[in-house]
């Protein structure tokens, strides 16, 4: 299923031409209307006319989250308030919010990207979409909402929270698809069971999950708990919101809608562009956005690209699964650790533990210590200390082999770890920064 087959399957050559025209245009626009970009380009003696094709993108300066913070709230906007029709802000975990402004065309473009993603997993006009992403400043809810409507689905704007009602609506309305954060999907699955329903009471066929890094293990868990096929949808508010890239039915990685968002991978240390297939920091340039175009925006997400052909026919270069966001990366005793590695190890370690966890890092006597709180599943069987000790020591060994650092494992009763209705907060770092 396609939303716009022609555009999604553009040949390499046609895409190169389109990307080139669009890059030339956007660079001209930001140079003229965003003082930060003019200053950045002037500083390195770069004129918009130096950009002649998409291949010249490497000459351009990067944009960072700090640039957005320095220009809080509207300093990065390329259009005036008369053209901006909506503002979103990202759920920054530290410091100021980062604000994004959209023109009418930007909203339409974003909806189109979400519509492409929905169509790619099999959504069709008669499908009913349960949107359990939060509606509001966070981009998740409204992005999928507009995308669903554009595709002609029946959209149920449930938003996040009120889990009992969510379950009731899914059972009563028989939604075909759902979108929310992966951690909330697991929670919904648990609550479904508690409410004495099973997946047979649902009609879910597919779900789009994103807004936080998640693992293949978690995908299987969600699929089992909600009885659907779980797809990854990638996005970030700075670039548009959810729907910058989406998996298709073949799940060979998430297709980036690269006629709109041009991806690069750069080396984490040198920021030099890396060849396709190598892992580094993902960088995006918005090729057509009007309200707040961004040039070479450093996402801090760590991944690799894949441009091998996909059986679906789409030519959008694909994102490998996000390994983590560089600012989620923990450095423990000099070792780089991503929470997603810990998550993979936990979920596959012992079937008696739930997929909820919390990582606490501290520095005691100048040594980094990491503690991982895990909890028993509600129906876990245990009645001997040795079986509990066996569980804890296996988890400890599995985590150590996954991340190369030994963690203290703290086993808790089911339900002890705080559930999230949006993005899960899974790490507390108590070390002095």
């Amino acid at each position, binding site marked *: 299923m396609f939303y716009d087959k022609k555009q999604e399957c553009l040949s390499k050559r046609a895409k190169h031409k389109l990307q080139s025209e669009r890059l030339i245009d956007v660079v001209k626009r930001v140079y003229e209307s965003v003082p930060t970009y003019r200053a950045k380009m002037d500083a390195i003696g770069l004129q918009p006319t130096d950009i002649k094709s998409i291949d010249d993108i490497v000459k351009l300066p990067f944009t960072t989250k700090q640039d957005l913070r320095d220009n809080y709230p509207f300093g990065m906007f390329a259009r005036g308030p008369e053209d901006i029709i909506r503002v979103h802000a990202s759920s920054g975990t530290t410091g100021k919010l980062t604000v994004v402004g959209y023109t009418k065309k930007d909203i339409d473009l974003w909806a189109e990207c979400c519509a492409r993603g929905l169509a790619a997993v099999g959504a069709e006009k008669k499908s009913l979409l349960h949107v359990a992403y939060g509606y509001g400043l966070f981009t998740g809810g409204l992005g999928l909402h507009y995308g669903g409507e554009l595709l002609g689905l029946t959209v149920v704007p449930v938003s996040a929270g009120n889990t009992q009602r969510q379950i009731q609506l899914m059972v009563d309305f028989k939604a075909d698809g759902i979108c929310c954060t992966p951690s909330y999907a697991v929670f919904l699955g648990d609550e479904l069971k508690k409410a004495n329903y099973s997946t047979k009471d649902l009609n879910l066929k597919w779900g789009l999950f994103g807004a936080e890094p998640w693992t293949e293990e978690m995908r299987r868990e969600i699929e089992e708990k909600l009885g659907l096929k779980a797809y990854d949808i990638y996005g970030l508010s700075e670039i548009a919101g959810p729907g910058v890239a989406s998996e298709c039915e073949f799940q060979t990685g998430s297709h980036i809608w690269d006629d709109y968002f041009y991806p690069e991978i750069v080396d984490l240390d040198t920021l030099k562009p890396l060849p396709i297939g190598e892992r580094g920091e993902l960088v995006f340039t918005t090729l057509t956005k009007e309200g707040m175009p961004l040039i070479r925006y450093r996402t801090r997400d760590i991944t690799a690209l894949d441009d091998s052909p996909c059986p679906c026919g789409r030519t959008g270069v694909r994102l490998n699964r996000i390994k983590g966001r560089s600012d989620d990366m923990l450095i423990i005793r000099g070792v780089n650790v991503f929470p997603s590695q810990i998550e993979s190890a936990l979920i596959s370690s012992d079937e008696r533990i739930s997929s909820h966890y919390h990582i606490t890092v501290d520095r005691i006597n100048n040594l980094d210590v990491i503690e991982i709180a895990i909890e028993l599943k*509600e129906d876990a069987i245990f*009645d*001997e200390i040795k079986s*509990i*000790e066996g569980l804890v020591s296996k988890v400890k060994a599995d985590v150590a082999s996954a991340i190369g650092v030994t963690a203290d494992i703290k*086993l*808790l009763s089911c339900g002890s770890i705080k559930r999230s209705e949006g993005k899960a907060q899974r790490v507390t770092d108590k070390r002095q920064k």
Partner: protein
Amino acid sequence: MLVNQIAVFLENRSGRIAEFSKVLADANINIRAMSIADTEEYGILRAITDNNAKAVDTLKSNGFNAFASDLIGFIVADKPGEMFKVLDILEKSKINIGYLYSFAGANKDSAIILIKVDDNEKTSAILEENGINLMGDGLII
């Protein structure tokens, strides 16, 4: 003939056993026998109540991990050497005991011993052959 018990996972922090007993008290459930095995970090509380099924449900809905399972219970005379007699039979039959707890019975001349083994059926048969007085839930509840 088996004795049903509940096992409850407890994090080793102050007040957790009090919370456990409050949950059961509020549900009007009476604890008849109890034992706790613990390490520095956590413990497992095992108990026999007058309504184990209700106890498990109530505990679960109050955020405890709990489940019910069956033990072998037997009655011995409350005097030196009686427990050894039974354990000796099990040892000779190569039955491994996971854990054991006991308490003096309702009448002052006898004691009740509960054991966790891998194979309840086989163990019961061995004990019965040796004339040990097995018991069910009735005597405790």
